[in-house]
């Protein structure tokens, strides 16, 4: 097909395979590890989205033989040594300013949302959306800290519902050592976003700030 397109339009072809990041790790191994030679055999360029957990499997070296891989990590707000990283915070401020007028936030509301997001854009947007709904319900013209805190509490409730007792000691350990590894539990926690992945000189992880108080409380 790509040859025909090339001949007809005289342009190179790029296939984008979306949605493959949603499949289970087992199916991901079937496709990207067991059939890596086959799916990289197109006479055209191709972009595949793949499950992030694959990167931590022992067989990932097979993938790297056939594919150039890129990881879209979260924006860090601090370093792995717990030093503040203002560039990350500024980037998130900038991103939000493109979507919503900063004037609509009162006091520290936006900063609180950014801190709670852990640099995960999806969480940040969800928090701001929830906080905005809370503000409308309160008949307030601005999003205030109280709205953000209520949104944080709601999201924390979602994490509590999702996490199992066995996860808390693992989260505590990752909070302390920041190390990423390929074990099953760490992968589950990365997928559930209770653990967030960052990179600078090396890949590291930290507990999602929204769930951290619960982790510390339950591992006393």
């Amino acid at each position, binding site marked *: 097909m790509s040859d025909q397109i090339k001949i007809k339009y005289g342009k190179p072809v790029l296939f984008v395979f*979306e*949605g493959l*990041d*949603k499949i289970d790790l087992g199916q991901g191994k079937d496709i990207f590890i067991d059939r890596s030679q086959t799916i990289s055999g197109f006479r055209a360029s191709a972009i595949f989205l793949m499950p992030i957990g694959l990167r931590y499997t022992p067989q990932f070296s097979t993938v790297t033989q056939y594919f150039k891989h890129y990881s879209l990590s979260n924006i860090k707000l601090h370093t792995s040594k717990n030093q503040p990283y203002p560039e990350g915070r500024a980037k998130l401020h900038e991103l939000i300013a493109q979507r919503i007028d900063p004037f609509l936030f009162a006091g520290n509301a936006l900063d609180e949302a950014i801190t709670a997001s852990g640099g995960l854009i*999806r969480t940040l947007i*969800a928090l701001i*959306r*929830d906080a905005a*709904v*809370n503000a*409308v*319900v309160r*008949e307030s013209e601005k999003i205030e800290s109280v709205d953000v805190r209520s949104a944080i509490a*709601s999201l924390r*409730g*979602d994490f509590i*519902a*999702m996490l199992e007792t066995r996860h808390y000691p693992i989260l505590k350990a990752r909070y302390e050592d920041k190390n990423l590894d390929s074990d099953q539990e760490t992968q589950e926690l990365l*997928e*559930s*976003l209770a653990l967030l992945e960052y990179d600078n000189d090396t890949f590291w992880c930290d507990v999602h700030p929204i769930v951290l108080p619960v982790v510390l409380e339950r591992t006393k």
Partner: protein
Amino acid sequence: MADLAVQDLPEPSNSYSNDLSKLLVLINSARRGFWAFAIYNNVVAREEVIETVKRTVSPLPVFDWTYSPENSYPASYLKSLTEEQKRERAVVFFFDLERGGTDAWKSLDYSRETLASHPHALIFWTTSKGRTDAARKAPHFWAQRSGVLDFTISVPVEQHRELMGSWAGQPVEVATYADAERQLRLFLGLLDEYRALPDAPLETIAQLDGKVGWLFDFLDRREEAVSCLEEQIEIARQLGLTELEAEALTNLAIVERIRTGRPKAIELLEQALILSSFPMLIAKIKQNLGEVIYLYGESDRSLNLLNEALKLFKQIGDNLGQANVLKAIGDVQSFRDEKDEALKSYDEALKLFKQVGSNLGQANVLKAIGDVQSFRKEMDEALKSYDEALKLFKQVGDNLG
């Protein structure tokens, strides 16, 4: 629709009023598609919220989708909408997805982009366990949620039980397929709640089994109907409730007649007839037995049974029962090639169905009249009868009819 102002929201009546306000704000503000999860622990409260939302967002259309083994993927709600409805804003409530297990949840991940591509507010009703399942089994879909609204209620145990009891005691009243789905949802939810009680009242569970079984059968979900009715029989035997057992056997016979054939149905009805001493139930058993046996060459016995049933329904003053029996008598007469008598019985049945307002009953009789007219080559009259029947089947939402 006009924008909702906060002061237009319904009066907060309980602990979930804040989440109800949030849900209405989300529905009102979102111009593009979104989804949210609504958590409940009480089906009565859930129905109350749904009614409030429907009332408040009107004239915005509201659609329901309920999980069933035959309709197990939420994205299938789009199949029931017209192209225009797909493009217009609407609210869609999804029920019982957690009955579908991992595959049903996982399908949300795979259909996320499809679900996001319509300007619909998709509200997934789940219990707390369902919320956990959604987060674990459909993480990509879950991650894009616009909210999790908490409609769980905390009421004193006695008050809760009183509320459940009053809803569980409601009769099954079905005018359309949508009614049947709504009532099935409610009674199934109540059944779950009763089963979870430490001292579950078996008789109430058996009564609910009967209602749920009947509704499953009405919706052509016969395997599930059999499972409920068998549980009802087991409990009735355990408690020594012979009338309830007879009623359950009768209802099971009605399901088995279509599912596995007539011999099983006859066996169950004969067992039920021995057990029952209630005139209404006896009438129903004789009616069903009469409807089944004429195809086995026993049309005389069939007509005798149906006439006995008719007499009993007349004595009780049950017009719907009489209408059903007259239709059955017409079927037997038509089978015996007594077409004039059949048409007379159908006419009487039609009058009674009209009197009680049963569109489905009228539709079935009109189709039967059309069949007789068609057999007699009275094609214009037959077409007229079929046309009227078709209109009524459409009103009821019976696609098979």
